[in-house]
């Protein structure tokens, strides 16, 4: 099911949570809404679900305008961060709930409901736990039950609101892989909200990066990571270092020195240079960025050093091999291998 969000605006007590957001979600894709808290990603998800109604704009399911349909009529599967399992029902009753509450005319027979619920329990790898109650399961298991419950109603769209937000890192990684498998198996159009960029990059076909009620960039993980559309996306996705630079004569200058980075087409003006700390090469000679080590710490397989650059004492981070001999005050010269230049004096 395609979902189209067209110029949707949402205000809470006249405070705008979303400004004129438009987004096309393709049938069968797994798409992530990614952003810091307060960026409007959960609001957008709840608008698609029908748990909120837009102040203006429309939401289409396929060709049909769903804006004024109730959450029941939209037939969406919604998974909550807090699981929201019904505590007074067994796991089996939880999963069958959506089928049991259907009007008699379209309700499957009891035996069929049970068969389908057990099948879903298999799908989420919780076979044999149907008689347990939610408080007898771990967080990861509960979230899998919540997903099975949402899938039971054969939703047109599956919506997940920070589904792994309350789980610890190890369980998150496992569930991430597992969710991808389920998605590939069932082929539901799936939208999930997360503030965890690693989760979004690993799991999603496409990412929607949001900030302050606006969509900053939509693209596949490679696009968003390698070709960030603006300083916010560059800073939010992945590690980044930034430096104020001058553009002059088709190259970049810091404090009156060329740093060996060409800037064709850009005219004379201040700008911000963005690059990834791990995406740099150390150079021995020629024009380069140079600085002295001001701090150093071990990060995984590399050593991250903070360099003081030039007279303004601007600090940037770069990664060195963990066995690099640099100590405090060592002078290091480097050039980013890939970078982006955004106009403006400050980020």
């Amino acid at each position, binding site marked *: 099911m395609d979902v189209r969000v067209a110029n949707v605006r949402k205000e809470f007590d006249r405070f705008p949570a979303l400004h004129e957001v438009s987004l096309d979600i393709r049938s069968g894709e797994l798409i992530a809404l990614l952003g810091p808290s307060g960026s409007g990603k959960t609001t957008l998800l709840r608008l698609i679900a*029908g748990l909120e109604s837009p102040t203006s704009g429309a939401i289409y399911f396929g060709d049909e305008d769903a804006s004024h349909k109730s959450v029941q009529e939209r037939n969406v599967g*919604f998974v909550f961060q807090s699981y*929201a399992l*019904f*505590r007074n029902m067994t796991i089996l009753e939880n999963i069958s*709930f*959506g089928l049991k*509450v*259907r009007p008699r005319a379209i309700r499957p027979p009891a035996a069929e409901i049970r068969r389908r619920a057990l099948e879903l329990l298999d799908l989420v790898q919780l076979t044999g736990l149907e008689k347990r109650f939610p408080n007898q399961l771990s967080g990861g298991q509960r979230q899998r039950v919540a997903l099975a419950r949402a899938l039971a*109603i054969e939703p047109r769209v599956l919506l997940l609101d920070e589904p792994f937000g309350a789980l610890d890192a190890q369980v998150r990684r496992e569930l991430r892989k597992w969710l991808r498998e389920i998605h590939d198996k069932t082929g539901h159009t799936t939208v999930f909200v997360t503030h965890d960029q690693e989760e979004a990059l690993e799991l999603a076909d496409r990412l929607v990066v949001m900030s302050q009620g606006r969509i900053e960039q939509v693209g596949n993980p490679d696009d968003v990571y390698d070709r960030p559309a603006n300083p916010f996306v560059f800073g939010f996705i992945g590690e980044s270092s930034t430096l104020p630079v001058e553009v002059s004569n088709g190259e970049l200058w810091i404090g009156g020195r060329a740093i060996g980075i060409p800037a064709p087409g850009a005219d004379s003006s201040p700008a911000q240079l963005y690059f990834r700390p791990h995406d740099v090469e150390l150079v021995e000679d020629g024009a380069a960025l140079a600085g002295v080590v001001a701090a150093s710490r071990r990060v995984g397989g590399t050593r991250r050093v903070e360099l003081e650059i030039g007279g303004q004492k601007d600090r940037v981070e770069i990664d060195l091999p963990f066995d690099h001999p640099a100590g405090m005050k060592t002078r290091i010269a480097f050039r980013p291998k890939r970078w982006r230049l955004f106009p403006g004096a400050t980020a």
Partner: protein
Amino acid sequence: MADTPPAPAVSSRPERIVFRSPVTEARPVRLLLIGISVAVLGLFLVLPLVSVFVQAVNLGLGPALATFSDPEAVSAIWLTLLVAAIAVPCNLVFGIAAAWAIAKYRFPGRTFLVSLIDLPFSVSPVVAGLVYVLLFGPFTPLGAWLLADFGVRIIFAVPGVVMATIFVTFPFIARELIPLMQDQGTGDEEAALSLGASGWQTFWRVTLPNVKWALLYGVLLCNARAMGEFGAVAVISGKLRGETVTVPLQIELFYQEFRALAQVSAFSLAAILAGLALVTLVIKSWLEWRYADQLAATRKH
């Protein structure tokens, strides 16, 4: 004892070092505190309770049981049951509605409504009775209109007794449900709705089961108060024997007769009320022990 100073290292006598938790007190202090509590409870609660039962069987079991064939006593018991049977369901419906509105919605005047629900706790029951007399009395416009056009008597009649009882038992159920429902939020309801349940199905299958033990707890307290209320009912009932007299009022009437047999009757009825209180207490404690997690986080009674 833990208070003794530590023995010098060279002491030949092996000193047993007792660890004492930093948040506990020395044994004499603990015994003193426990003793005071037990003495006060015994003097003010247990002793009077026991004496009620003792007084009831003062002249033997026969006269005590004879109370329950006295037409006035029987009528008082029936009236009390009737009043509770009307007041408790009324407050059940009202309590759920109010708790739902306050816990699940944001609307102007919400905090005011919360304070208003607590009003019967802070108003003297006598005042509660009196306001209805002033509102519905036969010489007020409203009371005269009801009496003349509909022949409905409120004051010095059963409707007034019921109204006064509803007033004083107003907060019990709502107060139990509000903190719990606020704590539970709207997540479960949203989940049920997103799964296609109607509002009615969501209420019966999700909201109500989530609060059922707190609801029972509230009903229990509400019922105990409804059957035991004296002040508000005394003002409004007019104490018409056999007509508007509830058990607590009948106890007082019997007690004021200064006949030995009436005294026994007073205490027999009192024993019924005390027994009701004990049963309530047992069920309440059992609920608290068994379903503590499903009752409201904050206890206010």
